């Protein structure tokens, strides 16, 4: 450990001693280089208001204050630990914006999550395990959830009404007066040209490529679906 990084949490404490410091610093540089980082972090009074407001802090070993402080101290060791252990507990409700200093710990976490996904960190793969079908739904159809997801085996804790919806799905959707809501596999009817435009956005912003790091199989399926549809329209990527 050099003089300049003496303020870092020691790897014996922060864990992940097998990961070189240079790698941890590389990841933090990616966090810091996000255009939003400077808008989200100003310092910390250590008042704990963000923790008091945080729902995840009540149920997990999680603290938005630690996130803001580690980022402020640029403690690459601790930040790496948080990227592996903490960030996926955040509820992203942004109650921590109550911070009197103006910090946005939830926003810093959003950026840290993005970096975790982009670099295929184990925490990202674990957190998104079981979530693949949702990513497929939103990226391929343009709506996040659909009526046909309401299956009793998927939501057994939501009560017997979920089963009623599942059994009567087609009929109940046809009974909805707004014409756009007669769908069962998407939240509403999305026009074909709209989907094409959405696919182009995923390709041109690198959002589709992000999936490759955390779920190569899902990435391959999504890429095939989108490329095929774009080819039908005569669009080459």
């Amino acid at each position, binding site marked *: 450990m050099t003089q300049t990084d003496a303020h870092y949490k020691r790897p014996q404490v922060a864990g992940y001693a097998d990961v070189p410091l240079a790698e941890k610093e590389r990841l933090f540089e990616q966090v810091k280089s996000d255009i939003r980082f400077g808008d989200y972090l100003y310092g910390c009074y250590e008042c704990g208001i963000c923790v008091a407001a945080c729902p995840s802090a009540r149920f997990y070993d999680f603290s938005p204050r630690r996130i803001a402080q580690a980022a402020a101290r640029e403690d690459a060791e601790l930040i790496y630990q948080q990227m592996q252990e903490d960030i996926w507990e955040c509820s992203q409700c942004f109650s921590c914006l109550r911070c009197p200093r103006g910090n946005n710990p939830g926003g810093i976490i959003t950026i840290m999550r993005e970096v975790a996904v982009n670099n295929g960190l184990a925490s990202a793969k674990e957190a998104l395990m079981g979530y693949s079908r949702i990513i497929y739904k939103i990226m391929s159809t343009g709506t996040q959830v659909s009526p046909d997801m309401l299956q009793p085996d998927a939501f057994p*804790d939501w009560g017997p009404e979920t089963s009623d919806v599942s059994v009567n799905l087609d009929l109940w959707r046809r*009974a909805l007066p707004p014409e756009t809501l007669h769908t069962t596999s998407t939240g509403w009817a999305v026009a074909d040209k709209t989907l094409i435009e959405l696919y182009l956005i995923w390709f041109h912003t690198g959002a589709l490529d992000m999936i490759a790091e955390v779920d190569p199989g899902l990435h391959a399926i999504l890429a095939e679906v989108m490329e095929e549809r774009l080819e039908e329209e005569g669009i080459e990527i």
Partner: protein
Amino acid sequence: MTIPIEALKRKKEHFERGEDRRALEDPRAELLHLEEQGELVVQKIDRETISVSTKYGREKRIQKAHLWHHKSCGQCGHIPGYSTSIFWVMRKLGYDYNDPQDQTSCTAWNYYASATSNSAAQAAVAVRNFAAANETGYFPLIHCGTSYGHYKDVREELIRHPDLRAQVRDIMAKIGKPLVLPEEIVHYSEWFHALRHEIKAKQVRDVSGIKVTVHPACHYYKLVEGDAIYDPDIYGGQRTAVVTGLAQELGADVRTYSTWFDCCGFGFRHILVQRDFTRSFATLRKIEVMKEEADPDVVLTHDTGCVTTLDKSQFAAQAHDRNVGVAVMSEAQFAALAMGAHPYKVCQLHWHSADYRPVLEKMGIDHERAWAEFQADLKRLENGEKRYLDWDDVG
């Protein structure tokens, strides 16, 4: 431990506080300035408006009619009576609207759940939807609280960062659209709040005996907080005025509770893949506290995730004999019921889980008869008399 002198020096350097970048005082003015410079296109409000006050006093104009409905994933997918009630109330007040197919999700639910996106993609999705609205001439009205909050964040990012604007303009050019943002970003609950007197004028059911608690949606008033609607006459201006203002206008008995600031427990990824947290938070920190302190007949809120979480989380808690069991719906559904809407054909309460029948009875609604009427309509669909029910069928 060695005192990290060099690090402390660096730290000081990093925390010289410059411009306060938490939120823009007047994003509308910034947008118009950027439009003058040819950086983007601003869709203008071009119909009659009602002015309301935001948290720090900036006036926000709410266009009454000719609105482009930016629908919500969770509302349309899992609680369709929510969206249907918004449309129904607008129709009953005689205001025209556009319910587009040229609309995608804001994709922010996924972004806050999985981070499998980035700021450029999020901004491009937002701008694509706004450009689609602009093409129709209808002004956007956002149904989802997360879309509303996220779009305001995106607006701030686009205003602050020229490089992001350039990147998004480039992507938009590839799909043949300009970079468009609306003059104001308006949530449907702001429209309901602004028009609460007109809604009251059409009220046909008495709700004065209904005890109500309000859950204000985090992404409505915590993201870009200065742009949310407040009123000194409602909670002394210390909480957002939307939802409560409407419920009070309709004459409901609005009651407070201590954990009003807490989120619902939705968690974005938690509601889908880690619901032990969601159920625990929703019941222990919200529903049980409301029951203990306010004994509500119904919980009203104004966002997709909040209705879902607070409604669906109660079933499992009942199995553990927790103090739960209260109806949950949006204020749009509540207002529609007060205006005489059918509880099943319009408000679609059969998609909800917590028992809503007691509150219907207190409103004087015969829910058994209403269910029989709905079943009769379903028969018409089953026997092929009609393929779909339409607005004429639901009254």
